[in-house]
């Protein structure tokens, strides 16, 4: 993706409610939105863009289960097979005493796993520079972007018309 350059036409909006209207309008007009960029999460955007539900929590559950099993099985193996020792008259396999560490391992695996997964699937990480369209998107501008690399002139004009009608305050192009 990074090797090929994209020609992007984007419009900036001043308010998230205008943006939401615009997104609905774009969907209604069957325009293919490349992406929407906002300074903060705008509620209602998932439905407007028809984004599929995030599956991050499922990954989190799996990581947590692995963590729980790792912790519990490790302690079980160590205290019943590898080096069985009686502590305080308790049985080798003292389940109640294993619960705290099992719990901590569950949370540790789930959290670390999810955060790493989140940044990886979102293409982020230390040292990564993803192209941005406008510096004000992280401040107070709300942006809809269209990929116009392969678009005809009239298609671009149509998109510009869309921006005008939907209340964009600025429209420009950028190659990223």
């Amino acid at each position, binding site marked *: 993706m990074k090797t090929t350059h994209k020609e992007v036409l984007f419009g900036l909006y001043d308010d998230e409610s205008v943006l939401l209207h615009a997104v609905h309008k774009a969907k209604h007009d069957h325009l293919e939105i490349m992406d929407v960029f906002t300074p*903060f999460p705008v*509620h209602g955007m998932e439905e407007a863009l028809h984004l599929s539900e*995030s599956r*991050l*929590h499922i990954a989190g559950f799996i990581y947590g289960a692995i963590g729980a099993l790792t912790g519990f099985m490790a302690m079980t193996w160590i205290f019943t097979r590898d080096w069985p020792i009686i502590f305080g008259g308790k049985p080798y396999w003292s389940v109640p005493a294993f619960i*705290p560490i099992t719990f901590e391992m569950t949370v540790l695996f*789930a959290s670390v796993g999810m955060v790493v997964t989140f940044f990886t699937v979102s293409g982020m990480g230390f040292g990564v520079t993803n192209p941005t369209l406008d510096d004000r998107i992280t401040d107070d501008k709300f942006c809809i972007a269209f990929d116009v690399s392969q678009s005809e002139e009239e298609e671009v004009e149509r998109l510009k018309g869309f921006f005008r009608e939907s209340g964009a305050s600025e429209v420009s192009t950028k190659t990223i």
Partner: protein
Amino acid sequence: MSAAVSAIREPLITGGKTYHDITEDICAPTERTPSRAWIIAFIFAVSALAFYAFCVTWTVWVGIGSWNLNRTINWGWDITNFVWWVGIGHAGTLISAILLLFRQRWRTGVNRAAEAMTIFAVMCAGQFPLIHMGRLWLGFFIFPYPNTRGPLWVNFNSPLLWDVFAISTYFTVSLLFWYTGLVPDFATVRDRAKGWRKKMYNFLSLGWTGSAKHWQRFESLSLVLAGLATPLVLSVHTIVSFDFATSVIPGWHTTIFPPYFVAGAIFSGFAMVQTLMVLTRKVLNLQDYITLEHIDYMNKIILVTGTIVGVAYLTELFIAWYSGYVYEQFAFYNRVMGPYFWAYIGMMSCNVLSPQLFWSRKLRRNIWLTFLMSIFVNIGMWFERFVIIVSTLARDYLPSSWSYYSASWVEVGLFIGTLGLFFTFYLLFTRVAPVVAVAEVKSILKLAGDQYAGKEHTGKHPESADAHSHGGH
């Protein structure tokens, strides 16, 4: 989030801010040269940190004998400080996780700084179990790895080892939670910066763009992390309480310890948040984001948790009598009337009695009193741990070994030193990162900004209501 907001709710962002104002106001402190107040505070903090390094070196060089611990009282200031710091380290995750789950919007004003505080407090806490081993360089023994002389492992049945897992997990998860929340805000700073600062924030912001899909995943991640961090934050102080409660020492072995330690931790954590917020909002000019409303809410939490702790104190006293177990009865008699009665009085008056002032709305919104009370609570909660640890150990089963303990200068120095460590990090944090969560505050502006919310308005802003009706299409 529902777009309808009751008119009874007070605004949480004042000054009629726009999105751009929010960016400007909150990012500004990272972009200008430090104020004189900051520089003076930083010099103090770094000096204390240097003294800390000196005291640690002294402890290692001379040995743990430079502390005043003795055979009877073998835990003193060290573990008191440990528990105190861990407790303080609870408010951040509470604010960011539990209040997120409870949809308390006011958390956005204070969560960032509170989370940072949490991380630094846990770092301070982590020092003490290591130093109190005396031989610092053997600290890695606490981690589970098979011993070189054979498959001899650490004791997984010991609450002290549970602590190792709990504290390190808590530190890791808090750090991830905090940093993930910071990424969009670092991107905001990045997009305003020039030169080397741009490079630095570009590195720190991990390539954040603000794409809709990323925000969706980001929110999902925040919710699940909050769901994980909530039981985690409970577990950490629970496990710290297990250090005491699994024993058979009267005064330590009591089943209410886990929830009561957690309540006490939240209590002391909020007190420290208040101490920092009262100063931070003034010095960095953030009164429009950390409003009197925020201070009021936090004082209410201090009142609630202080009273919960009070219920627990009285429960302990009562059940000690009720148990009919003479050692238990003596342990509590000794707490109240024994040689350390002054610590008990300090604990009761700072933790249970004085927070009752906060029943008055007027006092809850008094900045000076809030600051004073936050210091009181910090002191009271330190006394609580001191009472539990030292007054209990001083009178054990064998009267011939009864003893009295007061700290040496090294122990006091270590405590002051960790305060230096804490404030050094906190002061650096206020220079590098936006101390209020920029994106989160923006996301509640139309629900809680003073031009949209409050009595003067119908409680339903036309624009946001409009946006909402389209959300359901």
